[in-house]
């Protein structure tokens, strides 16, 4: 289990995350909802060691990784698919994937590469092309594949559907579900709440740096405040 316990993070004097606690479990998708500036991305960055933590703990299967350097967090089994995908545009698709498996052994890397190509045939077709020439959806697949290459037990996803064509959003989120089904714990931040709820197991809602709701999807759908906040007034009339 990836546990985040009473996490506090601040930028200078601005306290962006105030006592957030949540968890991701193997094989399950935990959806994190929240408005812009609620502290979702900050939470993910803090887990990865990209942002220093004021107080609180982050544990991976019982091992404390709070405040560790990013590369050590990755080695502990957590990886992040960053917002906006951020593939290495000038490098080839294969180089991007190999980088994802940077901290694994050479044989593992070769094995996983084949698996990823099996999962995303389009990446296999474009393996020698520059990653920057892929379409948005393809780049998202590459970002997923890159995260899988690290053989992480937990994958954090920051707004995977952002900026993608509506037709692609569905595919991308289904891929996230498939990743979870393969036994990986997925912690997903997603603006598109409706689409997110369709693939999620558990829901956490954050506002102004604090957790407002934790529960399973059914409970979330029953919570009027959540529905009003994230799905709009129309959801209430259903």
């Amino acid at each position, binding site marked *: 289990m990836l546990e985040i316990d009473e996490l506090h993070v601040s930028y200078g*004097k601005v306290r962006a995350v105030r006592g957030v606690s949540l968890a991701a479990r193997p094989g399950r998708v935990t959806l994190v909802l929240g*408005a*812009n500036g*609620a502290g979702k991305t900050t939470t993910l960055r803090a887990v990865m060691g990209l942002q220093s933590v004021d107080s609180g703990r982050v544990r991976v299967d019982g091992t404390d990784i709070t405040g560790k350097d990013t590369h050590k967090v990755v080695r502990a089994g957590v990886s992040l698919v960053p917002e906006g995908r951020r593939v290495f545009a000038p490098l080839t698709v294969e180089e991007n994937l190999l980088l994802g498996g940077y901290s694994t052994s050479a044989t593992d890397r070769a094995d996983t590469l084949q698996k990823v190509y099996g999962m995303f045939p389009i990446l296999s077709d474009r393996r020698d092309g520059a990653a920057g020439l892929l379409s948005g959806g393809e780049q998202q697949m590459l970002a997923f594949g890159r995260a899988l290459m690290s053989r992480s037990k937990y994958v954090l996803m920051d707004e995977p559907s952002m900026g993608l064509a509506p037709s692609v959003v569905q595919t991308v989120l289904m891929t996230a579900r498939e990743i979870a089904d393969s036994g990986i714990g997925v912690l997903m931040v997603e603006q598109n709440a409706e689409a997110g709820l369709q693939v999620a197991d558990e829901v956490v809602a954050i506002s*102004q740096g604090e957790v407002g709701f934790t529960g399973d999807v059914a409970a979330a759908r029953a919570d009027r405040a959540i529905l*009003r*906040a994230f799905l709009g007034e129309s959801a209430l009339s259903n």
Partner: protein
Amino acid sequence: MSAWYDAHLILVQATFISFLVALSIQFPMRMGVFSFAGVANYALGAYTAAIVVVRSDEIVSPVVSVGAGVLVAVVVSLILALIVRRLRGLYLAMATISVSLIVQVIAFNGGELTGGASGMFGVISDLTIGSVIVVCVVAAGILTWTERGTLGRRIDAVRDDPELAVSMGINVNRYRLVAFVGSGVFGSLAGGLEVLLRSTISPVNVGFSLVVTALTIIIVGGYRSWVGAAIGAVIVTWLPFYLQAMERYQQVIYGLFVVVAAIFVPGGLLGIADQARRRLVRRQLEHEDQEAAAEQDAGGAAVVDAVGASRKEEAR
């Protein structure tokens, strides 16, 4: 006082000239233009003034000789601004350093006109340090005006986020043009005044060392305001002089000083003062913030607050 002044006259002069040289690079930097053309402008200003004085039979007023230098530098700056308009960041810096070095080589190869390697001598004028101080004060006054109010904010926007500035309806290209022209004016003033005070100019005086000096002044003093350039000019001019007590190791200590400044004082000495002031203001604001937050917590669910917050953001 007067004895002290007589003994340190050269350093006093050098302080004001260094201030102007630093401005020729700092002014564009404030608008996000990382250009070292100021050094080329210094050379143009100095050589033009020297040529005007030496070639004319009658005594030339400093206004005419220095003015001619400013004119030449401004014209060259405008042309340069058009040529390099696509370049940004370090690329622009390298391109403009190239221009400065090319100007130096031209001065070397200028034959009779520039005096070649020997440079120009006997540049006689009745310029006094008083006039130099007046020029510096006027420059500082104009710069104060550009650092305050709407204009100041616009300049900050052009530097920090040019795309946002464009969307705010600011003509960024025009500001860049002004940056180059300003660099031309300050650089050529520094060069012209210096050559009249010292009576000599040679290619060695207009080389890469000037780039290094100007940059050091700005980084040590601070790049956001002319006050930083003034602080830097005083330090860079006087510190080596007082380091003489260290005898042989003065250059080593000077190097260490610059390194420490680069690591620990990114905003320059001016930045430290600014930070202290801002910290004070922030503490007050925070106090008000906390009160406001306490009120908010009292009412409504957190989730609903989130919606409110996001709506507020949209409204902006």
